């Protein structure tokens, strides 16, 4: 079969679909590091009000006097917001491409081995994004107040999670997050080209363990508060 030679100019590597995925993987790694640190901070709730509020204050004075007060948090916020924008826009472009790549769906389509986590990355990601917006409105800006308004971060936390449906919302969001991480961590490693045949199963297991650690770590304080272990 005769093939016409290509006269279209090849786009640079970063503009290919894998280039977009590298952006998603890299920003994903930043999110993961942030989640681990965030989860560690939350667990201070079990050490009591002084430890928790002290940690919150420490985050604000971190880097002083080189950084202004709350400078570190601002810096981190900017990095994270830029990362979210990059992660989501790359996802939207890839979502559209995948959608256009199969405009006629199968009448019958049966995945052979795909996990539920791997098949719900897009809707799961969207769920997490909406949750993060809600979470920021509740604990960062204080726009949504549950159980009253407090100056102490610790009291705000305890008041919020004494309400069962708030805990439920958080629990559902954490399930979505866990599923997203379970496939996302493996996917990021593969996208960055670090997976091999021998490493594939260990990477997937590690991803599952990290996802579980983060979910349990995040859910421990709210559940502890709901059942009166943290007052």
């Amino acid at each position, binding site marked *: *079969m005769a*093939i016409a*030679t*290509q006269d*279209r100019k*090849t*786009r*640079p*590597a*970063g*503009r*290919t*679909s*894998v*280039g*977009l*995925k*590298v952006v998603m993987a890299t920003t994903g790694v930043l999110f993961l590091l942030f989640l681990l640190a965030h989860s560690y901070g939350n667990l201070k709730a079990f050490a009591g009000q002084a430890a928790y509020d002290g940690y919150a204050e420490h985050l604000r004075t971190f880097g002083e006097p080189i950084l202004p007060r709350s400078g570190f948090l601002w810096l981190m916020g900017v990095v994270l917001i830029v990362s979210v924008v990059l992660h989501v826009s790359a996802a939207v472009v*890839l979502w559209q*491409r*995948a*959608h*256009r*790549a*199969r*405009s*006629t*769906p*199968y*009448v*019958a*389509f*049966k*995945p*052979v*081995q*795909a996990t539920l986590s*791997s*098949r719900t*990355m897009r809707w799961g990601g969207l769920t997490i994004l909406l949750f993060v917006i809600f979470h920021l409105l509740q604990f960062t800006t204080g726009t949504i107040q549950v159980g009253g308004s407090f100056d102490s971060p610790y009291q705000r936390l305890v008041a919020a999670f004494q309400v069962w449906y708030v805990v439920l919302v958080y629990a559902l969001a954490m399930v979505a997050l866990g599923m997203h991480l379970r*496939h996302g961590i*493996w*996917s990021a490693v*593969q*996208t*960055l*080209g*670090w*997976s*091999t*045949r021998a490493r*594939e199963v260990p990477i997937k297991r590690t991803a599952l363990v990290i996802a579980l650690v983060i979910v349990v770590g995040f859910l421990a304080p709210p559940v502890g508060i709901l059942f009166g272990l943290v007052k």
Partner: protein
Amino acid sequence: MKITLKIWRQKNATNPGRLVTYERDGVSADMSFLEMLDVLNEDLTTQGEEPVAFDHDCREGICGSCGVVIDGVAHGPQRTTTCQLHMRSFADGDTITVEPWRADPFPVIKDLVVNRGAFDRIIAAGGFVSVNTGSAPEAHATPVPKVDADRAFEAAACIGCGACVAACPNASAMLFTAAKITHLGALPQGQPERAARVVSMLDQQDAEGFGGCTNIGECAAVCPAGVPLETISQLNFDLRRSMTPSRRH
């Protein structure tokens, strides 16, 4: 065996298709899936109906021409090509749905036949090594370590059937492209064009309209040639490396 077939019938690329039901009796369990379709086509022809169009050539699992989605799985319930699938993989009384590969870069030509020219264009974009013409180089002139040769051979086993695209929820051609990247990248002859190859093949793959890979792994799970998922990691690695300035072409 008695089976009910629901086969996708589509007159041409522009007409919308639909599933048509055919009741079949006396199907032998030893028939291959394509022989079963042959018999159906003979009957359709004697009845004055249009036979079902499907692609096939070698019928021994090496050419990659055959390939349909059977009950929602590319090449059906066994991990092999459609031509190597036998009716004993089904039970008496089964209803079997048969559809073409569904991906916009693989437009349906007729019934179960799709145009896989997009694969040829991906190969043309870089799936080769450039050598000077003249007498063939002596085969032992360039030694290849056994592990590299095995790895290249495993990836080179791809028969270009397109099952990876058909099975991928994103209709991505990554396993196909990655197999060629791994095959040529494992060999000394593939090194000079390695960085340029991955970029241009991937760019062509995107231009054809295939989706992006989300590492779900359905492709490797249905691949009749056993091309492993790690080839995709290799492609990703090569692409990332091609971005470092010292390796730019």
